[in-house]
């Protein structure tokens, strides 16, 4: 891998991380609008929203640092997490190759969200933070099982290596399903968007954020979703071409397929979102726990070598 390739891909990656998520959101909004038979916002609308928020002075309901710094931390964590994913065959900043580190760094977005939410005297933000935590709690075992199955199969936990090493057995296919499910839940898409439910709890923690703090926070959340989906899309797209992709061109091919899969994922998510109502938190917990119990079988399958 040449230095130029590295630099070029890293540059593309940073651009994607920072500027693609609002576009994806815009696309999803457009698709949802189309399903609802309306024209919908322009595809670039999320950029407009973001820019207006970023240009506004915030108001501070508290002086607490936890509240004030949370957006920055969330943003930094989301971007950092996204930076360790493969773009083509390049990982822009590889402070880790490990999927757990990736998940934990990504989880810092949620932690920032929760700490900020709980650091206020406001039952809305509290409830939002509370729900975020519960969702994380309920989905973590499923995610763990998916990773465990992949690790059993591929004998590695390195994000960049799993898709190259994995052999497609029944258990791995099921693990992909679990991973997709976990990503969907972690991403907070309807019916799992209870932590930021607008009608129920006024977007949870965001109900106290304003101006550029809100802008940064929302941006961070979009990047988080992007990172999660990029992980999934990498896992899906790299095995498709791993035998033919080599060199810079191969990297470009992978990147293109990654992007295509990403858009495909986002599209299907938008469709699922618009066809569902938001669940209650206890329903989500019940459902995730059910998924977890069922998916223990996947691990057993993997242990048996299937």
């Amino acid at each position, binding site marked *: 891998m040449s230095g130029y390739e590295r630099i070029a891909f890293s540059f593309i990656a940073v651009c994607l991380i920072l500027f693609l998520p609002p576009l994806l959101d815009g696309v999803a909004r457009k698709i949802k609008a189309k399903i609802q*038979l*309306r024209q919908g916002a322009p595809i670039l609308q999320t950029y407009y929203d973001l820019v207006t928020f970023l240009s506004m002075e915030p108001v501070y309901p508290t002086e607490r640092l936890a509240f004030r710094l949370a957006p920055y931390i969330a943003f930094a964590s989301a971007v950092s997490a996204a930076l360790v994913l493969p773009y083509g065959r390049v990982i822009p900043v590889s402070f880790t190759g490990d999927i757990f580190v990736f998940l934990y760094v990504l989880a810092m977005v949620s932690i920032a969200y929760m700490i900020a939410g709980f650091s206020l005297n406001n039952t809305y933000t509290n409830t939002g933070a509370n729900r975020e935590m519960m969702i994380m709690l309920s989905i973590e075992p499923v995610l763990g099982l998916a990773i465990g199955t992949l690790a059993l199969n591929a004998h590695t936990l390195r994000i960049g290596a799993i898709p190259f090493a994995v052999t497609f057995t029944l258990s791995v296919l099921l693990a992909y399903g679990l991973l997709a499910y976990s990503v969907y839940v972690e991403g907070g898409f309807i019916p799992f968007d209870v932590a930021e439910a607008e009608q129920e709890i006024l977007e949870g923690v965001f109900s106290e954020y304003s101006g550029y703090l809100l802008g940064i926070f929302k941006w961070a959340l979009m990047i988080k979703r992007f990172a999660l989906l990029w992980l999934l899309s990498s896992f899906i797209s790299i095995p498709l071409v791993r035998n033919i992709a080599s060199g810079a061109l191969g990297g470009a091919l992978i990147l293109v397929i990654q992007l295509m899969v990403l858009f495909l994922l986002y599209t299907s998510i938008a469709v699922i979102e618009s066809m569902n109502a938001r669940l209650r938190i206890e329903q989500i917990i019940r459902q995730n726990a059910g998924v977890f119990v069922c998916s223990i079988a996947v691990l057993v399958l993997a242990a048996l070598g299937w």
Partner: protein
Amino acid sequence: MAVTLKYPFVKIEAPPEYRGVPHINPRLCIGCGACVNACPADALLRIDDYEKGTRKIVLDVGRCIRCARCDEACPTGAIRMTRNFEVATLDRKDHVEVVELRLHRCPNCGSYTDYTERALEKALQILPEGLFDGDEIRKRAILCRNCRRKLTVDDAVEASREVVE
């Protein structure tokens, strides 16, 4: 497929039955105040100035509830509901329509009466010709109340005004 209308980028016509904002046609208004009495929201005001001899009929679209009672009551069709609805503005003054009319001045005593010159003309138009002696009633009608009473005739204008209202 998307059913969204293109408004406001493409103009849209309100249906013919629509009760839009009312508008006073100042060329038809006789300043009788029937609309003012009919208006439940007090969007219409009648402001008389007996010093200057003017009557203002003030329509504030920003207070209007668009019930069309004024339209129903106006004897000359001066105030009509239009089909216009694009009346948003940043300045409330844009919502106000004022028609300032001259009050009739009694040729006898020189004081202003509580009806406008136009109302008088309208009243005369309505007055059934031939029911009374035409010229006679016209003479009396133009006088102010006190002067008219002096002439012991005051029912003609009153009657016609009743019809108007």
